[in-house]
């Protein structure tokens, strides 16, 4: 099973540790920089939840386009996946911060930038019940 399984595990284990075993609505944000496979993530989430005895009702996923901001000149830009080679995209898929080895600010060339939006999987809200 692909690595998205571990991303799903992180969410379920967090819910378990918070004592949240019955969730009515789970809201996730999917930053597209990481290029996570949404179907596989949702499938894994169901599997892991059932294995851990956690009941999840609706799962709402909001996609978020990546936005990068240069800390040197303030320029912001969105990071088209096409801008990366296959190998680079795979590295970013596993560890999004690898982007700092592959990309520079298009305006001033600085490597000092921040992924302000759209990094990867994040848990927005877990509505119990």
């Amino acid at each position: 099973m692909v690595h998205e399984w571990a991303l799903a595990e992180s969410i379920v284990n967090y819910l378990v540790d918070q004592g949240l075993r019955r969730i009515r609505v789970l809201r996730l944000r999917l930053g597209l920089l990481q290029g996570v496979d949404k179907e596989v993530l949702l499938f894994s989430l169901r599997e892991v939840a059932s294995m851990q005895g956690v009941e999840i009702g609706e799962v709402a996923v909001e996609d978020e386009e990546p936005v990068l901001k240069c800390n040197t000149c303030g320029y912001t830009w969105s990071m088209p996946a096409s801008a990366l080679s296959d190998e680079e995209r795979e590295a970013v898929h596993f560890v999004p911060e690898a982007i700092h080895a592959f990309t520079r600010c298009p305006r001033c060339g600085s490597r000092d930038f921040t992924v302000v939006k759209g990094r990867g999987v994040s848990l927005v809200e877990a509505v119990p019940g």
Partner: protein
Amino acid sequence: MTGDPRLHNALRNLSQAGRVYVVLSTKGGVGKTTVAVLLALHASRRLKAGLMDADLTNPSTHILLGIDPSAVKYREEKGIEPYRINGLRYVTMAAYTGEKPLPLRGREAGEALRELLAIVKWGPLDILLIDTPPGVGDEHLDLLYSLKNIVRPLVVATPSVLSVRSVARLIQLLREAGYGWIGLVENMGSGVLQGEPLLQGADYLGYIPFTPG
């Protein structure tokens, strides 16, 4: 444990890794990487051992292991499986960034380490060595405070006054954080640190002499 799901998975993944040692020193160049690699190679002869290079912006374990980072590949299996060098299970950021510079602000280094800790399936191990960058930054605070119940600090010091004074502060920090056991390895020395009053808060484990080449 705070609200980051990845730390909750890190807890599970690291609990499969047997004794987890975080190799530390506030000082650079005291031999953290050398000690981490030596211990990991030594352990891997008799035990199921792992080595993680958590010095993400300046990884150097691959240099001491003599391997080309582009050869390091991870199989995907509900996460990623460490790369095998003979018996040693090995994970390094250099597998993804090679010899390219990776300047990261502290927050990003912490994010990257949490991501790796959440997805690497160490599988049943007896011992895991985690090499870290010098200092006490985001990576160390996550390991030492958020994963406190799972890691054991292994402090490396050299007999120099700079190293002793700065490691003394680190030991004070670890004691105050509630660590009952703080391993101390004297590197490039001949045993003088055993009686060093400033380092009494740690458990002296022995010394590695200066061995050029």
